[in-house]
């Protein structure tokens, strides 16, 4: 179980995450929603310890994550995989090596540095790729793939870490609708098949409603919503997103103001 207590992160005078407390049981698929700047990324990055909290605690299975250092910190990161909006692969490295980066914690360092990966780990990485229909692209440079393909490589990298929790920071925000569905489906499969907890920042409420079992809403770094997706009525969404609401609910965009429309026409 993931327990967050009084978590706060400040950047200078601004407070990105403000006294946040949350409990997430193992195996859940939780969506984190809120307008941009609400503190969603900062929350996930603190759980992976890419950023350090200013105050508060994060506990996983009773272990305090916020004080980990050195080898213990690396071990925690291996157990807590991260998926990014921009995929964060090494574009020049081939696809399989990118996936094998997720195996670093399971492989002796000298073997990894010389790229003498054990056969068993290569097999694991290739199987993970093939699970997402990407086995034949193993030798391609990752930077040459489409966005959807790169995100599936990143998912494979996360999966071969054999993590207990996956943190996904707007994993589909850079993808077209078809690829977005594919990646969300893959995340849901991973969640169901392996029982891996998923914490996923989402911009689209439609995707959040369909894939998540629970939604957590942030505004100005504070927790303002925590319930099942069905409880997220349009009125609640309106209060969460304000002017952005139409955008995230996949309605047509608001009309341009009169003067401007006339000028463009």
């Amino acid at each position, binding site marked *: 179980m993931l327990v967050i207590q009084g978590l706060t992160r400040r950047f200078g005078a601004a407070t990105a995450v403000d006294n946040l407390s949350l409990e997430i049981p193992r195996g859940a698929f939780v969506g984190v929603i809120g307008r941009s700047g609400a503190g969603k990324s900062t929350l996930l990055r603190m759980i*992976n310890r*890419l950023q350090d909290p200013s105050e508060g605690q994060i506990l996983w299975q009773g272990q305090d994550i916020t004080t980990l250092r050195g080898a213990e910190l*690396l*071990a*925690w*990161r*291996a*157990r807590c*995989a*991260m998926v*990014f909006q*921009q*995929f*964060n*692969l*090494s*574009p*020049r*490295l081939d696809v399989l*090596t990118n996936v094998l*980066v*997720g195996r*670093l*914690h399971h492989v002796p*360092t000298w073997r*990894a*540095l010389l790229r003498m990966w054990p056969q068993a780990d290569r097999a694991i990485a290739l199987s993970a790729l093939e699970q997402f229909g990407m086995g034949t692209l193993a030798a391609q440079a990752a930077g040459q793939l489409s966005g959807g393909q790169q995100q599936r490589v*990143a998912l494979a*990298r*996360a999966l071969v*870490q054999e993590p207990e929790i996956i943190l996904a920071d707007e994993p589909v925000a850079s993808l077209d609708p078809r690829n977005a569905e594919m990646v969300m489906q893959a995340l849901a499969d991973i969640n169901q098949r392996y029982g891996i907890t998923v914490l996923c920042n989402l911009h689209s409420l439609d995707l959040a409603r369909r894939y998540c079992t629970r939604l957590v809403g942030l505004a100005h770094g504070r927790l303002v919503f925590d319930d099942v997706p069905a409880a997220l009525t349009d009125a609640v969404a309106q209060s969460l997103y304000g002017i952005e609401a139409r955008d995230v609910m996949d309605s047509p965009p608001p009309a341009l103001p009169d*003067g401007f429309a*006339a*000028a463009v*026409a």
Partner: protein
Amino acid sequence: MSQALPLLPAAQLAPLLAAYARSRRAVFWRGLLVAACLVAGSLASGWMAEVDLGKFGKHIGGFFSYFDRLTRLEGGGGRVWTDPGEWFWGLRPWLVQLGDTVLMAYAGTLFGALGGFCLAVLGAANLVQNQPLRWGAKRLAEFCRTVPDLVFALLFVIAFGLGPLPGVMALAIHSLGALGKQNSELVENIDMKPVEGAIAAGASWVAMVRFAVLPQILPGFLSYSLLRFEINVRGAAVLGFVGAGGIGQDLIEAVRKFYYNDVAALLVLIILTVVVIDTLTGLLRRRLLEAR
């Protein structure tokens, strides 16, 4: 477009235009200041170096007559190129010395490139949190590239004796400094997304450098190292002047003993070698830049 674009009211427009004009003026004055500094600097340096155009005119003739002596066969007769066999009488030992020179440059560049890569990564603010370590790496690289390789060679010849070893060490240390600087620019401009990707997956610092930094800077790193090899071949040719091995030792001896034809032959050999090396490394570097 059937209608004109809407204009801001004059009250809003005027301050924006004024602010723009102000910043343009600042750019103009800054440009003028730089130009003035350049002119003043060149006048000052001319005065310092006692550049005297009259003196230059008087002695330029001496310079050309030295070249005349260089190319006139010493045993009497015509120009050196009328008897190449006589001119290049020492071709075999000279070629051996030239080979030594290129090898010195090669070894110096190799060690310098490895060290320079390490210093660049250790000194990069985006990869290393430890400020004293970063500071140390930067200052070390600075020191290594500020002292000319000829000075290092002189010191090492005194410490280790004559021969190519002090030459290689001098080139390696100077290259380490220069490449440390150039590579640090590469490292500090990398895309940090792959770095975060590797760290988030639990990669150790070394593994992160291997899988997220090295692939990004490799073409630039190799290109700079080749350029440094080119420079080191030229550098190695004169290291022999202070007894640090290579063809320079033959050249300085020929100059001192007034073996005019040998001086000419050695100069031709050195220039040819440098041209060949420059062409080859240039070709390789172009291929690398295309791969970027």
